[in-house]
């Protein structure tokens, strides 16, 4: 996102949650919304996301690092 292309998230003055966390999340989502697939190189983000496994006992999701 450029300086001129900012999406703001406004929250109450006395909040119980962490506004910095929300800002980081917001920025992380927004900075990746461009055009990155219009080339011949293969995008593998989905494969990265698929490399999660769920532990059936704890229901924790663990990320596997692929060899790619």
């Amino acid at each position, binding site marked *: 996102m450029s300086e001129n292309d900012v999406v703001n998230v406004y929250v109450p003055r006395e909040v119980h949650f962490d506004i910095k966390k929300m800002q980081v999340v917001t920025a992380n989502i927004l900075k990746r919304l*461009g055009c990155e697939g219009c080339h*011949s*190189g293969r995008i593998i983000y989905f494969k990265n996301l698929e490399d999660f496994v769920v532990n059936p006992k704890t229901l924790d999701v663990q990320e596997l690092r692929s060899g790619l």
Partner: protein
Amino acid sequence: MRPLGPGVVVVPALLPWLSEQRGEQPVVEVEPQTLWSLQLDGGQRRYLLNRELFRRIVDLPNRKLVHSVGLPFGGPQPAAPEQIALIAEMSEALGTPWVSDHLSFNAFRDGDGWSNTGFFLPPRQTEASAQAAAQKIRELSTALGRPVAFETGVNYLRPHEDEMNDGDFFARVARLAGSGILLDVHNLWINECNGRQRAADVLAALPLDRVWELHVAGGTELNGFALDAHCGPVPEAVWELADAWVPRMPNLGAIIFEVLDDHASRLGVRVLDSQWERLQALWSRRAHADIRVTMSPIRAREPITRHVDEEWERTLAEAAIGRAPAGEMLACDPGLALFRELIFDTRAGFVAQGLRYSMTLLLSALGPRDTRELLSQYAATTPPELFASLESDRFAQFLRGRLPRVAYLDEVLGYEHALVRASLYGEASTVTFTHDPAELLDCLDRGQVPQALSSMTVSLLVAGQEGDRPGEPSMRERSE
């Protein structure tokens, strides 16, 4: 003119590496569209340049090249004037001596409009296609006021007897257009590995004085295919091919190593340094001090009939995006299934970028198979988009119409979709969480399924950049 030299495609992950280079500075190649975001105003598309990042690139002391990835020369779709205008502005700021794009197509006629393929597809290799591509190259050169080169593409389909071979097709386009060639040596090698023409035979057919630039890259394998993935170091066979042919290219002005942003950070400094050393060694094999790069000649637009080729390309596109079965000629081509998978993964990748937390929730709650099935149902009904924002918006709309029973999904999707819509449409919206949002997103960041989160009702106002400031009454919170 003085040639530029060896270099890299500039991606954010490479900026620290570039700043630490001493001695000869790598040329940096800029893919303009990757610095854009899309805004939709009614039916009008506007492309917004990330001026902060662009300024950092302009300010680099390195010499620069512009390599467009959104105005391919194959296929019937005319170049979008909004894209040309922004590329012209960026080219001027970067001082690029030429601009390149791909000899591929990424859109097809769909009713009264156009639909995207979501991936570069190979054009039909006929005389009419060569003439049409040459016309588009000449027109872009005229519109930009700069020399233009086309990139030799990767093609996962089998060669067809009723088409020109790769070398003859590239040579024909270059001569008709009076343009340069951006020779992607990795693509030639990949094509050879996958059963198309031998790379050395392609090179032997080309007018080598028109080769202004080389691309080299690393790939991987998928389903028995060699894949152009821009994910690693350049294979030795590609270096050897380039070593043998570079001395015969009198107007070679740049050699660029391509790597995707995510892979650049994973490769690490040592691998990047080793690739840089090989690039410099390859560059030293050139035999000429100065090069000649020229504008394509201006000619009046000629009517070119290529109904048969366009129909073939539309059949390929509709089959590749999974909308229609393949025609007889393509049905038994294993390359079609690969294109389908690549397009699907690219689309899923876009959705995973724009709706990362919602996708994490879906994967953890439904598992990869059912999540993929959901994405397949979406992909079968909606053509691909070239921007992650628009693809994410479309998928979020689809998902909201059939929301799976997954705890917290409504809240997370609501928040992410609001951000996407604010980016795309400048639209403000209020999002309500019934649980602590920071706790919820923290869980997802850590890769944990959220459980028993604190209840609270929080309304957030997501505002676009158009001065859409909230009034105090719109912000409210109620803890329970």
